[in-house]
């Protein structure tokens, strides 16, 4: 952050970016691709089952693809994100297209593992690029969130607008000392919702009509969540940053003692106002009454 971007009398205290392992949920997808590439390469070329794959293109392709797609389905179901399945499907379809386009069906044993490993490396690089696009600046007056690969986003949050901080640190975070802090505002920024849906199917009878009724219910739970650009995602050192933010929040928010003091001062002002009004009234009354003649000091002394 350049100094000219700072406000008057604003002091920059920390510039943070997410820890390299804080995007493990994305990195894990790449790790799986890497491991699967190695396993496929080993099974198809070096294992005792190697002979089963020789001159059997469809068997090798199915083995490679089923492993990828099955992992995609499991990951998607467990995280309720079909984008993971779509990602693995894209990797598989692109690989298959390249094989047919280049006519390298006989070399699938070499191509599939190398392609999967390359895909995982590209994935790692993309995640790293995404991670590096984040920048969080802590000043003594506000929090500045910056990020975005193509579209640059920026959010500035003053400490007096923060209601509370929600923080979390997973196992990796606890081991490496990083964690995520989500500042919440009265307007609801920093809150997301988790929704779960339960559905059941009922067949209404074969003779009348083969209808399939769907009974469902949805439950929504408000939970602290926001985009990684709008939170302090995987910041290190977690405890220190948390303490610093709490300190700033405390400094900007009025405490009970402050409130009492303000109320007392208000009382004082009221009393002063009343006194002033009283004095004014007295003055006015005096002005209305005829003033007695004032004795001349010098003449009396002479007398």
């Amino acid at each position, binding site marked *: 952050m350049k100094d000219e971007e700072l406000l008057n009398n604003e002091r920059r205290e920390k510039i943070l970016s997410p820890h390299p392992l804080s995007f493990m949920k994305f990195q894990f997808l790449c790790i799986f691709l890497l*491991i699967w590439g*190695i*396993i496929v390469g*080993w099974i198809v070329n*070096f294992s005792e089952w190697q002979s089963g794959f020789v001159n059997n293109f469809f068997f090798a392709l199915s083995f490679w693809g089923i492993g990828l797609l099955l992992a995609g389905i499991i990951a998607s179901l467990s995280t309720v994100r079909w984008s993971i399945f779509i990602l693995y499907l894209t990797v598989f379809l692109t690989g298959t297209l390249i094989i047919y386009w280049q006519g390298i069906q006989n070399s699938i044993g070499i191509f599939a593992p190398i392609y999967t490993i390359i895909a995982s490396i590209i994935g790692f690089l993309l995640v790293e690029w995404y991670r590096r696009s984040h920048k969080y600046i802590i000043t003594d007056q506000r929090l500045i969130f910056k990020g975005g690969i193509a579209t640059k986003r920026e959010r500035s949050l003053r400490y007096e607008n923060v209601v509370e901080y929600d923080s979390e640190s997973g*196992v990796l975070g*606890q*081991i*490496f*000392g990083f964690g995520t802090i989500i500042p919440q505002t009265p307007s609801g920024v920093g809150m997301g919702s988790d929704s779960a849906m339960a559905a059941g199917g009922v067949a209404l009878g074969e003779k009348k009509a083969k209808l399939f009724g769907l009974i469902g219910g949805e439950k929504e739970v408000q939970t602290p969540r926001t985009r990684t650009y709008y939170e302090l995602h995987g910041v290190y050192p977690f405890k220190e940053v948390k303490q610093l933010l709490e300190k700033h929040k405390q400094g900007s928010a009025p405490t009970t003692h402050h409130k009492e003091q303000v109320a007392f001062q208000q009382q004082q002002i009221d009393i002063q106002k009343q006194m002033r009004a009283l004095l004014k009234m007295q003055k006015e009354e005096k002005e209305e009454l005829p003033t007695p003649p004032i004795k001349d000091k010098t003449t009396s002394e002479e007398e």
Partner: protein
Amino acid sequence: MEGSPIDIVIFAPLAPILGVLLFWFIQLLFIESQKYLIEKIRPKHEPLCRFTNFLGVLYQSICHALGYTLTKSGISDFYISVNYGRVSPKKEKKGIFEWISNAFLFMGPFFIPAVLIILYLFLLGFKGFETIIPAQVLYLKYTFGGQLTTYGVNLYNFTNNFLNFLVNLNLLHPGHFGFLLLLIFLGLGIRPSHIGEKKVDRVNMIYDLKNIWKLITHKPIYIILLFSVTYLFFYISLLLGQIWYIIFFSFLGWLSIISIVALFITHMILYLIKTTDEIIGRKKYLLYIIIPLSYILARIFFHYIKADFDLSTSLFIMILSTILVLYLSKRKKKEKKTQKFKTKIDIKSLEKIDEGETDER
């Protein structure tokens, strides 16, 4: 069946118990030594230490939860963090059930994680789980000596096969590589009393032993009951002419052996980390590169030039090259250190010059 009745009835069941106790004690010593090493590397490798803590807490909590499950207490709360674990039962059961749950908490981490390795070995097709009765003690198998010999032979056979398997590990085989990782994780986590965020002096081997002693002396009746069940198990095996009793204790012995080997391997790794820390500069990274590089090069070499012991030789080359690079790096560092106060010209030659000068005068 030969042997005196007192020997068979009273002493014979004790033989494998003593064997298990001996190995368990060796395990305790290794754990204590590992804790010492971890404390040494802690300032520079805080995340690694936290990771070992997490593994320790994880194993402890799993064992405790297993204890509650087996005693049908149920689990209402299961919480694990890097420094702390908590398992709460659904129903607070007292008496023997509580005692068993606590026994799982204190004793479980020594044995239960090793069961995972046994299962993994089984999946890898390891052939070392055979239990035999040596021909020499066939007629004395239910005596103290016979039991001890059988236990020893079974343990020897397993250890032999297990070590043979280890020296022939194919690190380019995903299954074998996974096995090594699991073994390392097991070795890092076998700690009944974990090291917390800060060093706590009272948490050591004596602390563990005190805990176990408290468990025993708190309700001696349960220990008597446990011994009675063990003896009963022996008598049933004796009456039916089976070797179930010795098989059971051999299994416990295998678990101890696995744990000791895992602890030994982690010792080597921790020692390597500790020694590498002493090397200044980027040279220390060379050491971490040389480990996989030497192994892969050796494997490529043996792929083209066929040899009988290619797997074990590759491992040997890897270990040897690591030691060599470590030695050379440390030697250079030592030389640098000693050269700090050395003059550019040799002192002896300086003396000669001095003498020459005085002669001239």
